[in-house]
């Protein structure tokens, strides 16, 4: 198997390809926590996140041959997890605001940007959790899962520009929440 991306876990992945159970468990141990947090940020529910993780790991091991090594294994696996989680929450009918609704969104975002504002993890997490679902998904996928706007557009089935505008709006709204609702001034 030719590997374009030199994955540090490739030896374990190769053993997984042979169906070795111990290797599958090692991969699970390496990635379960990060994948579970990604799934949870989308589903907002432990049980849903576990269901997503179960389906995703089973699917990943089953289709491991389709991992061509062109990206990090973690990125490949996360794409599976995020897709499964998105499919689950799609049942809740995600609503994304269109870019046309607020043409001056980027300008507004810049207005709220303040250089003297500092953050704490728990506050930011709480602020994110208070965001509307569309904002929350875009900002977590971008900031925490490392997706670029092209990938976000793909998994959420929106345009890349919508992803960008949603992200800017989300950041603005988050700062407002931190300042006003959570009385967080940094």
């Amino acid at each position, binding site marked *: 198997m030719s590997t374009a991306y030199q994955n540090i876990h490739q030896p374990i992945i190769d053993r997984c390809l042979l169906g070795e159970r111990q290797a*599958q468990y090692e991969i699970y141990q390496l990635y379960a926590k990060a994948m*579970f947090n990604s799934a*949870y940020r989308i589903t907002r529910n432990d049980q849903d996140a576990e269901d997503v*993780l179960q389906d995703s790991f*089973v699917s990943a091991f089953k289709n491991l041959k389709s991992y061509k090594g062109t990206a990090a294994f973690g990125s490949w696996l996360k794409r599976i997890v995020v897709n499964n989680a998105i499919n689950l929450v799609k049942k809740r009918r995600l609503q994304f605001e269109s870019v046309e609704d607020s043409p001056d969104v980027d300008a507004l975002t810049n207005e709220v940007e303040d250089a003297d504002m*500092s953050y704490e993890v728990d506050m930011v997490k709480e602020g994110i959790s208070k965001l509307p679902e569309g904002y929350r998904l875009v900002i977590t996928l971008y900031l*925490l899962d490392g997706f670029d706007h092209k990938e976000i557009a793909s998994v959420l089935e929106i345009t890349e520009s919508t992803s960008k505008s949603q992200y800017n709006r989300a950041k603005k709204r988050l700062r407002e929440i931190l300042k006003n609702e959570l009385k967080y001034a940094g």
Partner: protein
Amino acid sequence: MQGKDNLEKFVAENREAFDDRMPGEELWSSIDKDLRTQVVAKTAWYWKAAVVVLLGAVSFLLFDKYSVENQTLAELESAEVSNIDKFEDLESFYTSIISQKQVKLNEELENNDEVYNYVEADLEELNELYSDLKELFLESQPSDELLDRLLHLLRQKIHLINSQLDIIGTEKVPESMKETNYSI
């Protein structure tokens, strides 16, 4: 791309702290169970395939054996059919001889009632035996042995009629010749 703002920098620097949740302890066993179920399902598929192949092989062998048996049976039947054909040919051959000879005998016996009655009784007895044997031969046992016996009976009929014709012929021979014949 624009430079990172404070929020982005903060998240990037504290990325690990955002992943503070852990999946339940039992999650791996559920995944493992699912994976093994698939393996079992795959194994079951192989078993099914193996069973199908085995059944196919057994069917083929049975069919093959049956074909061989059928072939043997067909050969036997063919032999039996040929026996019947042979019998029918020979029967018509002998029957035509017998008919000719009977016509001749009838002509000869018109003037000799005693002899006729005697021959007629023998021929009837032979005919009864012959028709029973013929029925057996045609209905259930077209064997070589029965064929031989049937043909033998037909020849006996001919022999009987011939003998009778000989006797009548002898009686017609002048007295002088009779003596000569006897002396022979």
